[in-house]
């Protein structure tokens, strides 16, 4: 197995974005972090301070999402979404910010509405706020680089305002917040589906073009005592299907249930499983192409593998349909983000959370292979492939480790040697 180099971009509660350079994967070699770099947007910090956008006391600059731009071949630009609704663009390989932060006018006018996250799909970048506003951000690819026109970013804007006043039995109930959302898009980018859900706000799937709900989920049937849980969806994941856009969604709830919705079949979940005693915080497909196994994490740091056994039929009872098939141990606190590396053939899973560690797990051995302490509550994680450790521009980023200059040079030299060797072998 050849050695891999990855850069893990981690966003934290204070609004810092850090890059962790991971190295390993070669036979016999262990995974280790080479360097931790903090990326600062010094160029534009002054303008932020002037505008008074950064309210440090409430931590509105906390990173909620780190997400790659769907840029085709180019994978390095990364969008960083913050709680206040600000979006920064960062070049992952060099660690420099691309232009000033982008702001959305309507988030600022509504102070209680927070940005939930960013997801990339083929036409652009989709953002969602807790108030239920889904937006599509398009950008122009100019010669100088990527330009995300701030004023025109709401082109193709789609308000899911209907979630705020959904038609229910008792009439419209205003103020139902969205807590989780997920995007699924076909390759051509014409058919984009967005799933939303939250507290007392059941799963709904929206078509981005028409802005209408395609599917409105229902809770499972009440039990023999007539008791049913109010929906509280905390995370969700589209499961890949044969058809271009998937029609099967797995949801995690705050009442520690995992529910599988299939909107070809019925509005109630087709399968359900109770796991643990805590809120389920995030889901991650074991293999991006295979809808059978999903890693789930909860608020006390348990990470388990959910085996869906996808050849379910309507006759199987829920208990038979889903089961837990593995666990990863090591997280000490609430897991906020789970991700597989870009090269899906590598059996690794990365996690970060409130225990202030980024952890790398080996999925074959089911063991933690590396952990990096990053000092803050970590909120979001994104892995990019880093072929070569590039020298970061000293003005924009500074190394946190006390690595001496000579040591660092030595590392780079070694890389070059390794590269040469690899080329020679080819």
């Amino acid at each position: 197995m050849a050695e891999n180099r990855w850069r893990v971009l981690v966003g934290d509660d204070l609004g810092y974005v850090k890059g962790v350079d991971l190295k390993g994967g070669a036979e016999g070699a262990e995974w280790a972090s080479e360097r931790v770099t903090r990326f600062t947007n010094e160029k534009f910090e002054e303008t932020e301070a002037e505008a008074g956008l950064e309210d440090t006391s409430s931590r509105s600059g906390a990173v909620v999402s780190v997400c790659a731009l769907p840029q085709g071949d180019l994978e390095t630009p990364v969008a960083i979404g913050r709680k206040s609704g600000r979006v920064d663009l960062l070049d992952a390989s060099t660690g420099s910010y691309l232009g000033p932060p982008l702001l959305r006018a309507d988030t600022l006018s509504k102070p209680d509405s927070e940005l939930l996250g960013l997801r990339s799909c083929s036409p652009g970048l989709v953002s969602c706020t807790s108030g239920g506003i889904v937006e599509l951000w398009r950008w122009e690819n100019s010669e100088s680089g990527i330009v995300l026109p701030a004023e025109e970013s709401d082109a193709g804007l789609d308000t899911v305002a209907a979630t705020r006043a959904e038609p229910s039995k008792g009439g419209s109930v205003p103020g139902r917040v969205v807590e989780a959302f997920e995007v699924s898009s076909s390759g051509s980018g014409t058919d984009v589906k967005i799933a939303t859900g939250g507290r007392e706000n059941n799963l709904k799937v929206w078509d981005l073009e028409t802005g209408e709900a395609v599917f409105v989920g229902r809770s499972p049937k009440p039990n023999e005592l007539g008791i049913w849980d109010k929906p509280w969806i905390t995370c969700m994941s589209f499961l890949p299907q044969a058809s271009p856009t998937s029609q099967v969604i797995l949801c995690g709830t705050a009442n520690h249930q995992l529910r599988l919705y299939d909107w070809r079949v019925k509005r109630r979940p087709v399968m359900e499983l109770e796991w643990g005693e805590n809120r389920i915080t995030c889901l991650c497909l074991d293999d991006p192409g295979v809808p059978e196994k999903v890693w789930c994490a909860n608020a006390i740091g348990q990470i388990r593998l959910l085996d869906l056994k996808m050849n379910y039929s309507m006759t199987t009872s829920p208990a038979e349909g889903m089961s837990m098939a593995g666990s990863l141990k090591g997280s000490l606190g609430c897991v906020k983000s789970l991700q597989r590396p870009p090269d899906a053939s590598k059996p690794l899973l990365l996690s970060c959370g409130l225990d202030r560690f980024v952890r790398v797990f080996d999925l074959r051995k089911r063991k933690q292979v590396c952990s990096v302490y990053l000092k803050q509550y970590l909120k979001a994680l994104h892995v990019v492939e880093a072929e070569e450790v590039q020298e970061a521009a000293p003005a924009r980023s500074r190394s946190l480790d006390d690595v001496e200059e000579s040591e660092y040079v030595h590392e780079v030299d070694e890389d070059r040697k390794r590269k040469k060797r690899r080329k020679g072998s080819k």
Partner: protein
Amino acid sequence: MALVENEDALHDVNAVKNKHKRNELVKKIKKKRRAAKKVEKEKRQKLLKEQGLPLPKPQTIDSQRTHDETFVADNDPEVLEDERTDEFAELLGGSDPPSLLMTTCPKPSKATHDFVKELECVFPFSTYKKRKETTLVTQVVEYAKQQGHTAVMIVNEDVKQVNALTLIHLPHGPTLSFKVSSLRLSQQIFGHGKALRDNFPELVMNNFRTRLGRRISRSLQSLFHTKPMCHNRQVATFHNQRDFLFFRHHRYIFEKRKEKVKTGGDEGGAKTQTKIQTRLQELGPRFTLKLQTIQKGILNWKYGDFEWCNTQDNKDSAGYNRRTYVL
């Protein structure tokens, strides 16, 4: 007459048939060995001292703890930045006194009542509210918020013994839950004093070295005033050792004492010299806390996000051993 030929050999003792005699012999031999060991050790230390070498440090479980990368360095800019904006920043940075609401589990027994009574003397300007049987914790928290309290402390008991303590910081959390053990009220402490009520004691926080430890230390600090009443000479100590937080409450006094000091020389005249001596009086109570969970926000077992919690998963994970400590 010696019963055994070689009194140092334990295996020879087996020749003695009488059990009591044999036990006595074993005890004797062991005592001898201990004494010999002690002498040898003193000899070694003396030799080292003569050579001017440092004495070897005693190997304790505490000193052999596994490496923890979360140890906080002095003036770590990132940690300071975090602490500038965390939940306790306002209380610890300002000069406003904290106010603590104390309550118990429903239907507390006498043990809990006594404990709370003593805790009231430790935490300044705290108020105790009796909890009705039907009052939920959420209602307690709601009430405390209305009254402007900065923290709620709930003392829990099991089989008429205090066993747990939950600390909820208001209005944004976090919630800490501790296990309480080895509780001794001041009545049970020999030579105890009486603590002054409504007094801000000085605070000693010992050995909180990791990031998590620092957070707990800040949480406990925020229950006391930033400006202690030093003239009352009372000290509250939280000492962390192997993840157990030992609480002690003392009064100190500096006393001037005249002492005879021998002056060197042939005259042999003894001089009197005034010396300042510190004396301590324990006020009580004594108890030990062990952290169970820290949860972000206000207590919510079902839906809360845990910063750290003591699960079986943690103990099963690689690298965990009995010398792994988190504080």
